[in-house]
């Protein structure tokens, strides 16, 4: 189980990177170009709140998992 937890750490890191790509290029930046104010606020929140949260949060979680911080004996 500990080995699985560690290997999945890589998956969480990869997921964080993929989520960053979609947040920036699919949800975030296109909203800035739409010209609508609702979209602007939505874009700001996606880019400056959700993206850092997922990238840093899920990335750190994945790193900790990879390093064995979530092993059963810890």
């Amino acid at each position, binding site marked *: 189980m500990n080995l699985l937890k560690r290997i999945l750490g890589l998956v969480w890191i990869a997921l964080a990177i993929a989520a960053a790509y979609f947040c920036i290029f699919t949800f975030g930046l296109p909203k800035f170009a739409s010209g609508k104010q*609702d979209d602007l606020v939505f874009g700001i929140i996606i880019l400056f*709140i959700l993206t850092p949260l997922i990238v840093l*949060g899920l990335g750190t979680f994945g790193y900790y998992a990879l390093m064995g911080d979530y092993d059963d004996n810890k």
Partner: protein
Amino acid sequence: MSATSTKGIWKVISASSMGTMIEWYDFYIFGSLAVVISTKFFPADNPTAAFLATLATFAVGFVVRPFGALFFGRLGDLIGRKYTFMVTLLLMGGATFLIGCIPSYETIGFMAPVLVLILRMLQGLALGGEYGGAATYVAEHAPVGQRGYWTSWIQTTATVGLFISLMVILATRSILTPEQFDLWGWRVPFWISIVMVGVSYLIRKNMDESPVFAKAKSEGNTSTNPLKESFGNRYNLKFVLLALFGATMGQGVVWYTGQFYAMSFMKTVMAIDSSQVDTLLGIALVMGTPFFIVFGWLSDKIGRKYIMMGGLLCAILLYRPIYKQMYETTNVNNKTEIVANTKIVPALKENSKQTMDSIYTTNKEYTDGTTLVEVKTVYLEDGTAVLVDGKPKMDTKTTININWDDKWALILLIFIQVIFVTMVYGPIAAFLVEMFPAKIRYTSMSLPYHVGNGIFGGLLPAISTYLVINGKDNGDPEFYLEGLWYPIIIAAVCFAVGMIYIKNKDLKNTHI
């Protein structure tokens, strides 16, 4: 009171739950009266005011709540749970009351939307601080092995707060004439808040500090820097991240899907009459609310993990079939129209530019009792149709009134979703409390809760709407189900993290 005694626990529950319910009431009346508020403070023809309106809606849900969690969580771990959640109560009540006192945009100009925005942000801060305090306070009074049951009462407050807000608004509307309500009556629900907060303050004032915190303080075991110990300490941070990605993130999206997305789906995608939707949702919530207690109690017996993960798994597997069934229930293409009863009434209506628009109202009846009203507006200028891309500019608004068989079918389908909500939400307060040590508990549990709910849950309507529109533009025949991918994916990641990394604790021996 000893943490292992049940004496006086009801007093603790009622004092805590009442305050938290009032905070939810305060939070919801702004949303429930959003249409009136926007006409008074945020005129749509003024772009800056409209921008402030969007900010007032988004800022509170997504940005301010986690900051409130940090600010008040730190205070709660430094000076105590009781005093902190009394401050959040007063802050919320004061802000709500003052929103009801602000002169309109017509009277004081831009100061009006600016003041509303500031007060709305204060509401968000207070809400961010309240939940963690109430959950921690109740859990630290609850006997070992019963924390899930007792804290689940706190979990019902958000739903009850929504009900009370709707009831107060409904009562105010029924007492006053529509003109009176529009002129000043909409302020009454805001003013009532100060009375409820006053009563709740007096009740909470006479409560004792949490026994766990009082003991830690008397022994000098409280934290001197809760933020640093919560998020700067790798050992604790890993649990904060686990709480977020393995529990609250999924709980947030399941909560928002079951209560808010279901409502929006019925109103906008299925085009059901708004008052019918409110009634259906209300009945489903009343039926589902007791299950917060049931699953809180059950989590004391079999553990928190498998109930929460069960709720997530049900949501992942069943959301698409449930929403497909909801859509098909009222899809008029599946019904037989009584063609002889169809009526089309043309009319002219003056628009905001003092010219006339052409309105065509079509009434249709179906053999099962369903009725449909379609209002088609063709925009005119100087008597001729306004053209956009060579076609007449027009809007079509459809409203469907459904029969009682369909109503009960929808109530059942919403009720099932509410059950998923109660499975993931009922035990979560106890789960979070048990995850962190007393000296940094308020700070550590509040942040993942409000990030999970405020950000991952709060973004659901915007992201899901985007996915639906995208699916429609791409010609997907099941475009109306596309919005569900967001909660399904988030819940699936959360389920995987939770199943693999969260341990099911032996609760009979878990002291906090």
